[in-house]
């Protein structure tokens, strides 16, 4: 029988697991003995600490983060609206289907290059991460609406629950777990695609351009340090997004 791990123990195990992989990283860096290919955790930490006093470090974080937040919010709102409409009307779903499928399967690199022709590089990451995130969130909302219990819908029809009340009290409780899983799988991708777009578009004062500079100057510890910053920011945003969503959910779905 599977034994369950308590939350407290889980946190301890997770910390130990991170320590284990950092140890492996350190061991590998000792074996390779070349900072250019694999810097040690200590040199990355040193590079990271050296970035903190720089104004450019914070400006870059602010620039990229604002782009990610904006694109994620817009994606979320558009996906929620179109997902609900698509779930309620098969015609709208069919109309959007080729577009969403194309957005899902076109490689990020192609999207970036194409979008670079349309918009200025400073707005590139916003558009690219919107195009990457939107289909995931749209399909989550669509599935939620389409999987609403038909027996519940029949009762709602009989009791004349329509419009806003139908959306809030019938559909929203059904959609909410799908939205949660959509957030889980899309927020990380939003960061990844935004930074990838910045690396190609090289807008001034962005984290992507800092990654590119680190690559050009073969400054691998800085490359790792910036990557670490992006990973931490993505994890923080995921936590924040869930917190925000559960607050909204608690308020709306009482």
């Amino acid at each position, binding site marked *: 029988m599977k034994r369950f791990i308590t939350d407290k123990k889980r946190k301890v195990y997770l910390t130990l697991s991170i320590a284990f992989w950092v140890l492996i990283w350190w061991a590998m860096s000792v074996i390779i003995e070349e900072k250019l290919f694999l810097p040690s955790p200590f040199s990355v930490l040193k590079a990271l600490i050296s970035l903190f006093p720089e104004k450019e470090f914070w400006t870059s974080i602010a620039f990229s983060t604002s782009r990610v937040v904006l694109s994620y919010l817009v994606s979320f709102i558009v996906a929620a609206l179109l997902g609900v409409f698509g779930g309620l009307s098969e015609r709208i779903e069919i109309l959007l289907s080729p577009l969403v499928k194309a957005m899902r399967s076109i490689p990020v690199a192609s999207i970036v290059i194409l979008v670079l022709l349309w918009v200025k590089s400073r707005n590139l990451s916003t558009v690219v991460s919107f195009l990457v995130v939107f289909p995931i969130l749209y399909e989550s909302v669509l599935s939620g609406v389409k999987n609403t219990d038909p*027996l*519940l819908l029949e009762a709602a029809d*009989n*009791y004349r629950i329509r419009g806003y*009340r139908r959306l809030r*009290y019938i559909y929203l*409780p059904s959609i909410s777990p799908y939205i949660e899983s959509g957030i889980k799988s899309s927020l990380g991708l939003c960061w990844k695609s935004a930074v990838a777009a910045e690396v190609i578009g090289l807008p001034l004062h962005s984290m992507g351009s800092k990654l590119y500079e680190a690559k050009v100057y073969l400054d691998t510890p800085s490359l790792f340090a910036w990557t670490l910053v992006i990973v931490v920011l993505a994890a923080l945003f995921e936590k924040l997004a869930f917190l925000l969503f559960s607050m909204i959910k608690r308020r709306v779905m*009482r």
Partner: protein
Amino acid sequence: MKVNIKKKAFGSDVIFSDLSLTIKEGVTSFIMAPSGWGKTTLLRIMAGLDDDYEGTVESKCDNNIVLFQENRLVEGISVLSNLKALGVKEEDSIDVLSHLSLYEERNKKVSELSGGMKRRVALSRVLLLSGDRYFLDEPFTGLDDECKREIAFYIAKKLSGKTVVVVSHNKEDSLLLRAVDTLVLGE
């Protein structure tokens, strides 16, 4: 309301053939039949939820309120929110909930309630809505005898003068709901 069903079938399985019955308006009619006879199917036809049959239901109306066999509640939200969804006044909801001994549970999520409590929430939903006819499918499922008596008394009072059709396999429910007409089918 005159019901004349020549044939109702699910695939090759014929449920009813040449079934005729008359439901009196403004009173409670009770239809009793053993489990598996097709009570729910008959109720759905009478309530206009099922059109896939041969025959006629005379003097159909659009404003039928149905208590479904299943509770069909939104589990993830509170009892009160399930009632708010109906667009009725909160004080009316509180009043009905109090009569059904659910006042204390009003802010609890439906998923936290027992089977009997869920049935009572489903019943409160029906009692809050104003309809021309009420169709109740096994209204007392999961309720104990004492609770059943109290609730039946309240339902009878609340729906007095309305056309109510109740289907059940329990003859005692007919007396509790003060049914004027009792139709025993399937014997």
